[in-house]
């Protein structure tokens, strides 16, 4: 069975079980390793990717669900908010172990793409699905605000 969709801007056909979670299709079939496995049940957000610009948990999204649609992983981030987020992540030295950070960055980017001036409450709402066991949360919050400021500026 093959599924065709647009992965990071490129038309892509993956030959895999259509029930395979998008996470494993992206990692093991498409060979893009930035998206991580953390829980397998949409509890931790490590696997966050964008589907038509919305942050989704790829570990519970079957490959078949993205047929004909646009999927973006951290490897395909191009937008101005995405670049601002990644620059702020580096400037504010957010990552520690780093394993969850692809997912954090994908959620933060989706937030800023829809809401360029998020409040702390907006950040809580958008980012509470992303666990960081290193608890880099203060810097995640600060980096999102910094990225928002840099886009405005």
């Amino acid at each position: 069975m093959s599924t065709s969709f647009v992965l990071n801007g490129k038309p892509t056909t993956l030959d895999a079980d259509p029930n395979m979670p998008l996470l494993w299709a992206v990692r093991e079939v498409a060979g893009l390793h930035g998206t991580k496995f953390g829980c397998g049940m949409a509890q931790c957000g490590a696997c966050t990717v964008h589907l038509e610009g919305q942050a989704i948990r790829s570990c519970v999204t079957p490959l078949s669900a993205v047929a004909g649609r646009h999927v973006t992983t951290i490897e395909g981030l191009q937008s101005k908010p995405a670049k601002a987020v990644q620059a702020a992540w580096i400037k504010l030295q957010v990552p520690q172990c780093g394993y969850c950070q692809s997912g954090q960055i994908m959620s933060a980017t989706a937030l800023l793409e829809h809401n360029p001036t998020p409040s702390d409450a907006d950040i809580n709402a958008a980012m509470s699905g992303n666990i960081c066991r290193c608890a880099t949360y203060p810097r995640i919050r600060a980096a999102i605000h910094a990225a928002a400021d840099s886009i405005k500026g």
Partner: protein
Amino acid sequence: MTTDFIDTPSSARRGFLKSVGATTAMALTIGFVWGGTTRRAFAAPVADTFTPNAFLRIGSDNSVTVIAKHVELGQGAYTGIATIVAEELDADWTRIRVESAPADAKRYANLAFGTLQGTGGSSAMANSWMQLREAGAKARAMLLAAAAKKWQVPVSELTTENGTVYHAPTKRRATFGSLASAAAALPVPSTVTLKDPKDFKLIGGHAPRVDVPAKSHGTAQFTLDVAFPGMLVALLQRPPLFGATVKSYDASAAKAVPGVVNVVQVPGGVAVVAKGFWAAKQGRDALKVEWDDTHAEKRSSAAIMDEYRRVAEQPGRPARVEGDASKAIQGAARTVSASYEFPYLAHAPMEPLDAVVKLSAERCEIWAGDQFQTIDQSNAARTAGLKPEQVSIHTLYAGGSFGRRANARSDYIVEAVSIAKALGANGTPIKLQWTREDDIHGGLYRPMYFHKLEAGLNAQGQLTGWKHVIVGQSILADTPFTAMVKDGIDSTSVEGAANIAYAIPNIDVQLSTTRTGVPVLWWRVVGSSHTAFAVEAFIDEVAHTAGQDPYTFRRNLLAHNPRMKAVLELAADKAGWTNTPLPPGKGRGIAVAEAFKTYVAQVAEVSVDKDGKVKVDRVVCAVDCGTPINPDNIVAQMEGGIGFGLGAVLHGAITLKDGRVEQNNFDGYQVLRIDEMPKVEVHIVPSTLAPTGVGEPGVAPVGPAVANAIFAATGKRVHVLPFATQNEA
């Protein structure tokens, strides 16, 4: 070629790697290489390489490669190690890259551990400090000698800066790279003068973390990301009860899943091996195993805690006895007593445990976020039937650990090797992947503990007697570290309690070590993850009974311990303890702890709403870790330690019902999320003393500081952890 496991972001780089052939392969087998700001990650070592010692390589291309004997699992070890070397070397920070060391206790032992190579106990900076300063300084001396010889000038006229040697009188300069081959021909000096700390530029400065760019672009290499052609993925079905074993299994349904290649029994259970994770997962779901639970732990954690409460009434073994605490308490004007209950805790690092093994008749290669390299090497060798020197370990970035990967039994490594062996040791790369459920069910928890405390105060409100009984499992017993248990006292069970810092004339700390079928392990900050709570929550109760301010009460008992007193004062001062009252519904609590020779005090401010829901608004933290090597990383580790510790005291508990773990994933085993993270302010005590660690100590005071703040806000004490337990009761 061994390049295939590298997840190169572009095909151009892949082509480059293949074209450079054997040299690159050699470099890669040394370990994962961090690429610095230019991401020259996988470049081959250049021909004229200056390798003055085991920790440093300077290439004629001016690259400076620092070899890290410690794993990078988030604590910033790679950056700290590179900072120390680069400081004494006067290297150009932008040309520094870090590479993980192979398993080799002769060169890469943790000097705090003796003869084994590993990371833990917040020891990376403390044990590397003089070793790496000397390594950097000797290399610099050799580069200077090479320049002096080349230019025929005295060494005393030479200076170094940013990877370049200067001779000011003749306005000559030479980069380190251009001197590399000449320096390599010179003898290594036996002694060297280290920098005066006042001349430090990188140490105490703002060297950015070496791993942050890759970790912000999704290109950092974790074990999860290792992918060889033909690699198989294994999921292991482990027993549902600790201590159960396989009676029989039926693999027919598992083998019918497309992609499943084999099903093999190993000592730890039954492994389903497939072409990828998803097939292996479906195969394991379809696997039928009958378990023999004759020798399994079948008790509930509540029943085990009941037993601990009874055990606490019996005398334990003395961990510290000074004076006569019982007599002092009997004769006291006022007495206080309390007990504290601590649950099992899982580490739950974000990267579920994983390891890749390539096993053949003669060799075993392992890729993992490896924390105990030489222990894992010997356990892997024993499992494979090889000699340790036939096992090589490639240490990759670890997606967190919090103690979980520092495991004397090497559980996940041994599982991976045993599966590769059961499959015929035919060289096929095997990736063992744990799921989150495997992790939560997998044991090796922070032990459950029961603490019972009593104190006596004289008529003047002075603390005259302190009795502390601790009941719980030993982390070190029945492991290769069992020799560290002295006279029945496992120091990891009593640290933070037996060495209570307060000046009390009569002290009696006792330990009763229990046995259960639940395997246990150290968890971030180890003993102080419970002892600091018991001591600091109880001293707060004692201060209250004495009618004294909890900060002043502590401070008066710390006159003999200036470092502990100083962090306490700093935290109180910065938090506005004495001069900034809080409105009703809010409370402020203080706690101080010493762990791994680092002193941390924290003041927590909480809000409690009318339903009793607690929100931690702010934590002010003061830390004395000796010479601050990387102040921003110290701040980050305090922030992270506070969040990690707070998640545990608010929500963390692994409970057993008839031997079965009741939590499965992050829905049941809840950890801190961003909406619960308080504002954190960190203040670092300036110091020129030898550096100590920061990865763990920040965890210790946050729980009691918050509990004490809850008391200040509500008048209610927390005696059973996690806090969520009280709300349910």
